[in-house]
């Protein structure tokens, strides 16, 4: 019990320090919230407004205009919430610059330091989600998430799982830095995969039918598209399925990350001072 509370205190400390680091970088906050999130959203809004006008307002792949508008708002906020870019960039920098060594000598495992650091940083990005939810609640054109507490709890679980999945997946990718010289390729890989497979560019239902299985089952979907879809089109069955699959992916990715981490440290020969 004492061990758990000590670990909890350490986890909170890492999360808090990471959160504070994010908050003190005001320039980044302005760019991230105002430009990186708002501008792509406005572009999507203009495109889909035109498309729906051409369609005389009829549904496209099961999405009404307002639903799609809210889907993109959620998808963008979720893509920012579940963004493993910093996990990979920091891990690569720590490995290549030898700074990993000082972190390894702390009485808290490095992967957990990074996990709680990531959760701390990301917690700030729950704010846009709440704002969108608030707008959705007051907006009459789009049905909000049901007030059913089970559904709300399920959504909360899905969001937490999406965070853990994002971290473990990014950590696995970042570990490749032990073997490769230039880590930029890992960041490009993550960005490309996220853009294509997460449902950020297009909801999975709008992709051609031969790609549907990939869009339905890939893990990135459960970080962005699945929660976004469930926020605009509540569906108990889909929610349960998403929670179960997300959990399974979390277990798989966490196991892979543990194995890869052990293997990496065995081959980590950072000689010299």
């Amino acid at each position: 019990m004492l061990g758990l509370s000590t670990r909890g205190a350490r986890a909170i400390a890492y999360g808090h320090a990471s959160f504070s680091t994010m908050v003190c970088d005001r320039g980044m906050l302005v760019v991230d919230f105002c430009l990186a999130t708002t501008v792509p959203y406005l572009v999507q809004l203009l495109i889909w407004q035109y498309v729906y006008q051409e369609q005389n307002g009829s549904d496209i792949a099961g999405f009404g205009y307002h639903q799609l508008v809210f889907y993109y708002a959620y998808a963008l906020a979720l893509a920012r919430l579940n963004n493993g870019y910093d996990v990979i960039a920091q891990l690569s920098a720590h490995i290549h610059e030898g700074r990993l060594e000082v972190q390894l000598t702390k009485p808290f495992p490095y992967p957990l330091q990074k996990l709680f650091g990531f959760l701390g940083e990301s917690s700030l990005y729950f704010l846009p989600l709440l704002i969108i939810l608030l707008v959705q609640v007051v907006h009459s054109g789009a049905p909000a998430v049901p007030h059913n507490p089970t559904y709300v709890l399920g959504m909360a679980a899905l969001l937490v799982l999406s965070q853990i999945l994002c971290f473990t997946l990014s950590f696995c990718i970042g570990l490749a830095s032990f073997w490769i010289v230039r880590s930029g390729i890992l960041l490009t890989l993550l960005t490309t995969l996220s853009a294509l497979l997460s449902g950020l560019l297009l909801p999975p239902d709008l992709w051609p039918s031969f790609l549907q299985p990939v869009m339905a089952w890939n893990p990135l979907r459960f970080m962005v598209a699945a929660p976004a879809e469930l926020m605009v089109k509540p569906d108990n069955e889909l929610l349960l399925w998403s929670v179960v699959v997300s959990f399974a992916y979390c277990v798989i990715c966490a196991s892979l990350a543990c194995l890869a981490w052990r293997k990496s440290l065995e081959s980590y020969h950072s000689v010299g001072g």
Partner: protein
Amino acid sequence: MQTCSEVIRVTEVSKQYRSRTQTDGYRGFFRGLFNPDYEYHQALDGINLSLGRGESLGFLGANGAGKSTFAKILCGIQRPTTGQVEVLGFTPHTRSSAFYKKIGVVFGHKHSLWWDLPVRRSFDLARRLYSIDQRKFDRNRTELCDALNLASVLERPVRVLSLGERVKCELAMNLLHSPEVLLLDEPTVGLDLSSRSEIRQYLNRLRSERGISIFMTSHDMGDIEGCCENVLLLHQGRIHYDGKLSSLKQKFRKDVKVRMTPADHVFDLQVCSTLAQSLCERGANLEILTLSQEEVLFKVDKNDVNALSSTLIGTFNPNLEISYPDLEEIMLNQLTQWREAP
């Protein structure tokens, strides 16, 4: 078996690295993808040592001698290829939390402070990380800030600190939990003279008051002389000396400088040269570095100092000043000798 007073025990530790050999040309590149060739490098070879409670040990050697590799093995970052390491009864490479709560590790050129946050926040994180009692934390922090002159930087973000301030903060952060063993890898790199002095004084105080054991690698002989009683001299992964610092000076001190200045009248240069030549012919190992009527400077083997001094006194009755080389000079000579004849 580790005795009660022994905090570090290392038995027959060796470390071998392998690295991929770079091959030229497309054919070599593609062959390397599927069937790479490796070359092996012996970083450490048959290292044995022990360190008792309250003792300090300096690890000396040229660049690439294996000092940092050994420091990393001691703190569990790397695993030895063969041999056994025990620190405070723990096997370091198992990396248990209990082990890291008992040691402090400082790499002078790397830090774990939170870059964008005030130093105080990094210290607060250390309090949670090491589960330090609030009163003990406050007491230690005040003591460290006083000893290392850090009070003025506590509220400043780490990114605006100078290198020396960062190194001192890193050291302070790793001492907040009162570790039993302190592993320092070049802890004073980039520090000014007063900062170095503050650190050395504080480390000595920790050792005498709290019985903390210190293992240190450094290229700064001032650090070694200022903090370490025992030294270990490493060359190409093997120990070439293990013992007291004072004995090291005796063992590796070869040349002594003898300065002769006239007591009443100037020297006859011809006589000086002839005298040196006749001593050399009798087997003495000496060399004249400066030759003038007001001063003659000899470099002489430590075994020939007496012969030279008595001859000079008998001939000129001069003022003689005998100076022994300092640790830095001794190490420089030794490392140069190894480099020329490995």
